[in-house]
């Protein structure tokens, strides 16, 4: 540590008051780990600001002192993003939890970092609105999910949650305050267009280029009619073909398939074989409409796609999900699907993933290789694939529970996940919310020009490399 902890602590207390600053060893321990395999590391100080001005003061001070600062909201990501690689200050933003605006006509909301999915869901429901709820814990931060390319459900045909962003306010690492998108021009928070997309410097950057203090996001009307269409397939090839054919209509709000292992509650840990008489893949499509006719039209399109697949000899067929499982696809946010109940129950507390965006036509190759890796390592190939914006994005990931009591089992899971990521990269996939173990693999293959530009952006915005240093790996 090259900075003076006592002096920094005192300066933080001067800014926030001693109630909101702690260097207690247990406080630091509680912020040292998350669900993932990422090795725990302690921050030196934890501080809880409440205002944008306090964050500005803290970042100016941190620049003077050259002390690392890690933004933190709920600590529920499974990529170790808030585990401080180089110690320093964790800025826990949970006190900044205001929903500043919900614009019903323009359908956007403006929120602070501490607003949870549960909080936003309650507020939006009163106005008949919804967001792209992820299957994360209801206590997770909406803002952190969106700026880290988190994925949502029920709005999948509109894209990732990062594509829902309409404007943002950021405190730069050097303490200046900027607003981007329409909010930066006129003060209205409705759109990122048609202005230069400077917001990209803060999205997917893992909290290494500034602290987003307000975010505008699109919201949608809750449809009056919904249905969940479910099928099974004997193999990933047939399931992928079906999803691409059906996905081209961009009619499903959520078009997802899960392997047999992910469909089990909990995921079998350690691995156990699938019974021969059960399908290997299951898929659900959530469709919605504002009239019965609209819903019926979508059903017809789905039946057409299904029939065409079957005429080509596919094993895809209608498969009745249990009612509870169907409800779980639409009743979001959810404690049950969002709490890792069906991911890690009984496994021993650990959960990580190779979370990637992989071109859908490459899913079969990736899954078959993942299956070999996972089974070899005694882990279930509990894989999920989802299409976003029709067939434009293909999400591919394997929820990987492991036993945190045993270092060998943590290592085994980590190696399986990294090996799986290498496969995804081989076929054109890229990871999201990546821990540094993933970025090591990414940078081995990335275009040097891309890596250099990331460095330049980082250096330009954060000349003293105080923001979540080490997490982006380039600095």
């Amino acid at each position, binding site marked *: 540590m090259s900075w003076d902890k006592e002096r920094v602590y005192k300066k933080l207390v001067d800014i926030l008051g001693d109630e*909101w600053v*702690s260097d*207690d*060893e*247990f*406080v630091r*321990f*509680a*912020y040292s*780990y*998350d*669900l993932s395999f990422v090795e725990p590391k302690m921050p030196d100080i*934890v501080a*809880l600001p409440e205002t944008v001005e306090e964050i500005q003061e803290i970042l100016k001070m941190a620049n003077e002192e050259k002390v690392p600062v890690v933004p933190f909201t*709920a*600590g*529920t990501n499974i990529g170790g993003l808030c585990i401080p690689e180089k110690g320093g200050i964790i800025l*826990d933003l*949970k*006190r900044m939890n205001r929903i500043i605006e919900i614009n019903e006509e323009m359908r956007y909301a403006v929120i602070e970092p501490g607003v*949870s999915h*549960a*909080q936003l*869901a*309650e507020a939006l*429901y*009163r106005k008949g609105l919804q967001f792209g709820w992820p299957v994360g*814990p*209801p*206590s*997770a931060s909406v803002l952190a999910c969106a700026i880290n390319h988190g994925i949502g459900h029920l709005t999948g045909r509109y894209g990732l949650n990062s594509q829902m962003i309409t404007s943002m306010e950021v405190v730069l690492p050097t303490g200046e305050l900027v607003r981007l998108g329409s909010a930066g021009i006129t003060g209205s928070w409705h759109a990122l267009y048609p202005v230069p997309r400077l917001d990209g410097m803060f999205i997917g950057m893992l909290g290494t280029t500034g602290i987003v203090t307000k975010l505008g996001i699109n919201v949608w009307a809750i449809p009056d009619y919904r249905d969940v269409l479910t099928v099974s397939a004997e193999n990933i090839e047939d399931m992928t073909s079906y999803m691409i054919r059906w996905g081209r209509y961009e009619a499903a709000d959520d078009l997802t398939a899960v392997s047999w292992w992910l469909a089990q509650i909990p995921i079998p840990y350690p691995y156990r074989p699938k019974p021969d008489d059960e399908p290997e893949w299951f898929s659900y499509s959530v469709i919605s409409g504002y009239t019965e006719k609209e819903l019926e039209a979508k059903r017809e399109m789905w039946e057409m796609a299904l029939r065409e697949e079957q005429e080509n000899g596919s094993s895809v067929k209608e498969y009745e999900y249990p009612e509870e499982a169907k409800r779980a696809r639409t*009743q*979001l*946010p*959810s*404690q*049950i699907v*969002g*709490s*890792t*109940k069906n*991911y*890690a*129950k*009984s496994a*021993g*507390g*650990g*959960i990580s993933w190779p979370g990637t965006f992989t071109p859908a036509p490459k899913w079969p190759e990736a899954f078959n290789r993942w299956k070999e890796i996972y089974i070899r390592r005694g882990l279930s190939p509990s894989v999920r694939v989802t299409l976003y914006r029709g067939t434009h994005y293909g999400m591919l990931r394997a929820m990987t529970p492991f*036993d*945190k*009591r045993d270092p060998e089992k943590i290592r085994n899971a980590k190696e399986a996940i990294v090996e799986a990521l290498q496969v995804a990269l081989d076929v054109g996939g890229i990871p999201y919310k990546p821990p540094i173990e993933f970025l090591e693999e990414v940078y081995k293959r990335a275009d040097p020009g891309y890596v250099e530009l990331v460095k330049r952006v980082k250096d330009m915005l954060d000349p003293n490399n105080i923001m979540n240093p080490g997490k982006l790996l380039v600095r």
Partner: protein
Amino acid sequence: MGFKKLEELKDAVYMCTYCGTCKVAYTYGPPPLFAPICPQGERFKFDAYLGSRSKSAMAKAILTGATGWTDTLVNSLFTCNVCGGCEYQCQTDFKPEILHTIEALRYEAVKAGRFPKEHGRIAENVLKYRNPYGEDPERKEDWADSKYEGGELLYFVGCTAALRRPEIPKAAAEVFKALGIEFTILGKDEVCCGSPLIRTGQWDAAEQIMGETIDRIVETGITDVVTTCAGCYKTLTRDYASFDFKGYDKLKFQHITQYLLDKINPSSSLGMKVTYHDPCHLGRQAEVYEEPREILRKIGAELIEMPRNRGNAYCCGAGGGVKGAFPDLALETSKKRVEEAESLGIEAIVTACPFCVRNLQDAEPSVPVYDIIELVRKTL
């Protein structure tokens, strides 16, 4: 048998994924419910205080030696109301052992000498006077206008009702009399159930009196035991069940709301707009949610629910030894609960626990706070 020690709970602790679902109350609905659920988390905000996730971290820290009994760890451990709000949200295999883990951590803290001195005084009082208030045991009969003996029902009054909220046992006795139910009380011989000791981790002291508590009951020869105290009810039905006290298995414990539900036949209608506060020990921790509500309907109360009700009820702030050791925090929490109730435009707050009555009254609400038995009495 007996209390589970921290080491025995290690496997359960490691079932916590640290997902944070425990941090807030949430149900899908519709409409969705979102609300704070952790009183100490609301006050201190740091993740080291918030929800059961903080307590699994604490257990891991102590079990692995990652930290010692730091000031914040001890403060987080003992400012917890052990209310179970976090437990109700949890969906992992840690869920059934969350409260046991908190109490087991407290037991370890007590052994390490890191616990509030106010809790130590409670233990001294219980061991010396058989009640946590240090009152002469004779005073446990002060509320009673006669020596209640006979019948086939034992009314286990509990220390708080007998010594601090005498209006509750008085009302219960009048209700029994109105219904023609003969009952017995133990009076000065009634021994604390041990709840204040168990919740605060003072297990060695608790184990010194628990057998005696059961012996006094068994000696009456009565097997049907009813109590107006949510804490006594939870303790006698849950904690004692993991021991092997002689005669315990013959005893049938009921909270008074369970006992009276099919017995009362009100002669008048209350006609009062009320809300019901679920005591943590009776609701989440003993799953008695509907009987009190049924009774309120039966006596003609108009029941208006608070947004946080049943499993999502917000603690009154008293439990877990917080009222004794951190009265300001207990009051801060009760004020939040009272605000929630008052926002409904009700005429009274009703609960079914003398400790909740006391702490909610301390918040000086604009409407009266009643134990449910007091309202039942008004209609008979």
